[in-house]
């Protein structure tokens, strides 16, 4: 154990680095960005920045936010993270209406499609549920709520949490390569015991999951991204793997420089136009990969790599609304103290998606200039905290996010000598020898 504290010390510092997150209201009424402990919201309808109202005591979140999301009906918004607090906001008034304490740091959260429950997962693999008592009034005073434990992945970090589109299942992904599909209990919610399936096939941590809708399939199809550089398509009822798309190859083709032995983990996925298209963000790719998802033939294929002109823009999070015209991207990081920035965020938007046009071609896609983004400079001012940046800082930021992610989710491998050494210096052995 003697030498490990050194390593762990390093790790802990890196783990504090949190990537920037983005979420768009399902009807594109507002857009939210989280960087570190800072939650920034811009009202796209009123075209103005939003001031959040949180009566729990001025400082909103006290540590890095790790997950943000809108409910699918657009009324609720959830933010949670390292400060072990889950905040549930009304998107009408942008008041924090529920404050939920967690025993451990929160790593993922989801809102049930009917808006009645919020689930969140902690870093010890336990998933909790908060019952919202049948609905939400945007102007109600702040209520402190308690969560009830629902299920657990045994001592694994939950990386992503989603409800199936019909709300029947809760799907949770973890760093032990697993995706678990659990039947979400109908009232009263005590514990979710019935596991529908496990989706197994990833060979590294699962980093993100999302649902694709299909008319004749009310619960939807699941797609997942992973540290193994693949995106996979699943049938959640049986847990069977329908398609696998190697996206890591694409990055290698694009990157002229040789990066030997470097896996490019998928960091964020986002379905567009009801799932015909899937946008994928990958470590060290400046831009996104668009996949076409054919649900009838069970195929996932690369349509196009949309790369940004700025080589430093490697998105950390993606989001789009139901009425998709835009794909919103953010890159950024918090906790990078050595670069002289407490937090960094840069927002970009890809436009040209057309849900109603079946003959849509990907050639119409373009990355909007800053002044063409909905909300324009005002929005960027709010969400980025500024409009001009030293671009180079973002490269360092991307590198830091990458290291932090791998430290958090990849198992540490020790050499045989190191392991023997640790065994030799084990306390119970030492006592015997002494």
């Amino acid at each position, binding site marked *: 154990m003697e030498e490990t504290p050194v390593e762990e010390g390093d790790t802990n510092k890196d783990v504090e680095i949190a990537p920037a997150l983005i979420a768009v209201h399902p009807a594109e009424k507002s857009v939210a960005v989280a960087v570190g402990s800072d939650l920034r919201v811009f009202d796209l309808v009123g075209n103005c920045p939003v001031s959040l109202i949180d009566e729990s005591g001025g400082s909103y979140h006290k540590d890095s936010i790790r997950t943000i999301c809108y409910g699918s009906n657009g009324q609720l918004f959830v933010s949670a993270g390292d400060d072990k607090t889950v905040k549930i906001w009304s998107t009408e008034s942008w008041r924090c209406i529920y404050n939920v304490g967690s025993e451990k740091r929160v790593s993922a959260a989801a809102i049930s499609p009917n808006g009645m429950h919020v689930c969140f997962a902690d870093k010890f693999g*336990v998933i909790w549920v908060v019952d919202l008592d049948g609905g939400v009034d945007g102007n109600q005073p702040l209520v402190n709520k308690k969560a009830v*434990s629902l*299920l*657990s992945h*045994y*001592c*694994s970090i939950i990386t992503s949490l989603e409800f199936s589109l019909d709300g029947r299942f809760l799907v949770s992904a973890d760093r*032990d*390569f*697993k995706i*678990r599909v*659990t*039947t979400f209990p109908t009232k009263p919610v005590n*514990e*979710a*015991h*019935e*596991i529908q*399936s*496990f989706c*197994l*096939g*990833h*060979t590294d941590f699962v980093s993100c999951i999302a649902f694709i809708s299909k008319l004749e399939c009310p619960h939807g199809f699941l797609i997942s991204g992973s540290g193994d550089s693949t995106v996979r398509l699943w049938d959640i009822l049986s*847990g069977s793997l329908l398609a696998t798309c190697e996206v890591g190859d694409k990055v290698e083709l694009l990157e002229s420089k040789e990066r030997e032995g470097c896996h490019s983990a998928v960091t964020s996925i986002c379905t567009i136009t009801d799932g015909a298209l899937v946008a994928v963000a990958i470590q060290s790719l400046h831009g996104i990969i668009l996949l076409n998802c054919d649900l009838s033939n069970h195929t996932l294929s690369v349509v196009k790599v949309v790369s940004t002109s700025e080589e430093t823009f490697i998105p950390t999070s993606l989001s789009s609304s139901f009425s998709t015209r835009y794909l919103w991207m953010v890159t950024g990081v918090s906790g990078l103290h050595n670069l002289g920035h407490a937090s960094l965020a840069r927002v970009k938007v890809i436009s040209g998606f057309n849900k109603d046009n079946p003959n849509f071609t990907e050639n119409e896609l373009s990355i909007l200039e800053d002044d063409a983004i909905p909300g324009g400079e005002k929005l960027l001012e709010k969400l980025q905290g500024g409009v001009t940046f030293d671009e180079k800082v973002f490269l360092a930021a991307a590198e830091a996010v990458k290291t932090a992610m791998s430290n958090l989710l990849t*198992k*540490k*491998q*020790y050499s045989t000598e190191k*392991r023997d050494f640790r065994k030799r210096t084990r306390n*119970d052995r030492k006592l015997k020898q002494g």
Partner: protein
Amino acid sequence: MLDHDANSTISKSTGLPRKRFYRARAHSNPLSDSHFPIPICPSEVDYSLHYPQLFPSNDQLHRSKKIEFADIGCGFGGLLISLSTLFPETLMIGMELRDKVTEYVKERILALRVANPGQYQNVSVVRTNSMKYIPNYFEKAQLSKMFFLFPDPHFKEKNHRRRVISPHLLDEYAYTLRVGGIIYTITDVEELGEWMKSCLENHPLFEALTAEELEVDPAVKLLSSATEEGQKVARNEGQTFQAVYRRISAAP
């Protein structure tokens, strides 16, 4: 009897491995990161390695049968060895986290196969953390029996989450057990016995076997007699506490 070669880990008289060379710590931390290989999914479990006589090749598509019994925390393998001859047609596997102990059981099975041609071909062992990786080894409803014999009691409340029977882990066991499948638990620690019983009792997917059913189940008799731990308790005239429950289907 005198062993001529004191360094041999195999006893000359019986051909079986000698336990003294496989001493291990009594406990292992189930929470720590694992560094042994884990199959990505149940179809990746190589049956030809575990049951070479029954599965000469690792043909995943045409498996005539699948593992049906799992002994979780099989220890030195006493129960498996007894079950192997009691249910000669059933494939069974022991799961054990301590590598030295797993090694012992492996050698024991190999030696028994040599000494008794045709027997013990249906039993094997794997080193793994069953609390984390059960779904990687077994499909939904694949198992008909699961055994949890004399598990680590983890007395401190802080460590209760390390217990192998817990409300949340029972969800996973319910997933791997088929409806009608049976979970067997036994311990010599009264507190743990009560804990396991209450976990099973409160779980909506399990129901207790009746006294008559326990009476006629041949596996129940082995719980206290077949394992090394059980024999130790019997020698010390200690008490044991068992809980045997059946997997039932969910209420509609």
